[in-house]
Every structure is written in structure tokens, then in C-alpha cells.
């Protein structure tokens, strides 16, 4: 019997100077959050100076995705990594606002802005 894929997200990774840019593609929900979490942990193990999470291609995120990013932010702070979120869709931004995390994270409009924020 073929294994059913439980994850629905892919995470692209790019290194630009001393920054690592992670770009998840797809809905980040309870199914997909472990995939993003694993990738964040892998990248954070290298202790980059800057970690950008580009959410351009994330149309939907639930609290499991938010929790994953909160955990990553806490690790980033411990490691001295500057973590920035960028390009949030309105639906994704609203969950950060509901959770009152929009002022806790550094959130900018574009990936270019995230390189200097």
C-alpha cells in the first residue's frame, strides 16, 4: 500500500551573504508545521546572522504554524540570529494580530526589506 503523504508544504532555502532565507510553499497547518519546524531547526543549527522567513507563498497559516515560528524566534534570540518575517498575506498577518504577536516579530513587506530590517 502506498504511503500517504501527510505534509503539504515544501520549504525552499537560499543563502544570501550572511543571511538564510526560508520560503515555505503551501498552507502551514498542523500537517505541515513539522516540516517547517524541521527545516528551521536545520538552518538554525548553522547559526546564521540573519534568518528570513519569506511567507509570500503561504496562503494560510494556523496556530501550529505560529507556534513553530515562535519557537524559532526563541532559538534565534538565544543564538544571536536576527529573525525577520516578510510578505505575509492578509489572512496570515491577521492570525499574528489576533495572537498579539505582530509586535513581537519583526515583520516587513518584502524579502528585500527583510535583508536590512
Amino acid at each position, binding site marked *: 500500500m502506498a504511503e500517504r503523504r501527510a505534509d503539504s508544504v515544501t520549504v525552499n532555502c537560499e543563502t544570501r551573504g550572511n543571511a538564510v532565507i526560508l520560503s515555505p510553499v503551501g498552507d502551514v497547518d*498542523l*500537517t505541515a508545521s513539522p516540516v517547517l519546524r524541521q527545516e528551521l531547526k536545520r538552518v538554525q543549527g548553522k547559526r546564521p546572522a540573519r534568518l528570513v522567513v519569506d511567507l509570500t507563498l503561504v496562503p494560510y497559516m494556523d*496556530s501550529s504554524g505560529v507556534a513553530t515560528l515562535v519557537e524559532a524566534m526563541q532559538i534565534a534570540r538565544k543564538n544571536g540570529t536576527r529573525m525577520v518575517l516578510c510578505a505575509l498575506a492578509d489572512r496570515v498577518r491577521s492570525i499574528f494580530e*489576533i495572537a*498579539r504577536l505582530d509586535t513581537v516579530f519583526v515583520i516587513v513587506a518584502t524579502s528585500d526589506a527583510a535583508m536590512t530590517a
Partner: protein
Amino acid sequence: MSAIPSTAPGSAGPPEVSIEIMSNPLYLSGARELVAAVARRLGFPDESCGQIALAVDEAICNVIRHGYDRAADKPIWIHLWPLGTVKQENSCGCAAGGGCGDGNHAVEALKIVIEDEAKQVDPAQIKSRNLEDVRPGGLGVHIIRAVMDEVTYERREKTGMRLTMIKRRVHAGAEEVGNG
């Protein structure tokens, strides 16, 4: 899987939409997209449809994680009741069915009931956590209460829990009722 009553307490008649899913996160997207699509068809604006989808997603996640301790083979039922008038599609004569904007297809509110056979807990203990404490997790109940207009948790008669949520529709030119 055991059957559940087709009419939840306090509901006038059986639900107009019911689905049963296994407690596998794989089916989260299907459940939330179905509910959002129904809400859209009933005249809810896009923002409300997104909020309804989010609330359903968070509610199911809580059942899976806390109710069933992540067991993926347990039942979850989702029922929808449009509240108010739902006229037949195209009764106004418009071609698109629901897109005419005359309100014929729109309902006043959408009631969503999510039931399970998970362990029962005291509904009074299901609370939002302190958001000042920035940490991963524990946001689901807060989000549900923030985006829906009415939220009630209760024990089912024999086993499991029932969550009833109501989202009122925003009328054109009127302030939305509630905090959603």
C-alpha cells in the same frame, strides 16, 4: 465509528451540511475549505470565510491534539446550520446564484457544531491563555473566541465534547456585530 444524533440540542432541525472525518491532520484542509466554501456561498464576505475556516481548523486541531492525544483514527463530526433565510439558488433570477447582491441568498449567521468522542473535560477549564506569555502553543482557544461571535463548549451526553460556534454575517453598510 458510532453514530451521533443528527440534531444537536437547541437546533431547529437537522444540520444542512454534515461531514465526518477521522482525526487525521491530513483532512484538516478539506474540512476548513468545505466550511469556508459553504460560508462564501451563503453570502459571508471573504474575511469572515477566512475566519470561519480558521476557527474550524483550530477546533479540529484541539480535538486531535488534546482530545484524542493525536490518535489519527477517531471520529470528528462537523455540522453546519445556516441561521435565517436561505432561498433557493437563482430564486432572484440572477445567473450566478448568490452573486446578485440582493441578499436573497444570504443568511443572518452560520452555526457550526463540532463533536467528538474524546475525553470529557470541564468546559469552564477551556480558556484562552495569557498572551503576554510569549511561547509556542496554546493559542487555539483564544483564536476561536476572537474570530467567532459565540463560542460554547459542553460535554456531550455520554462521551466526548461539543463545540458550538456562531458567526454572524456582516451586512453591507452595517457594522459587524461581535468581535469577529
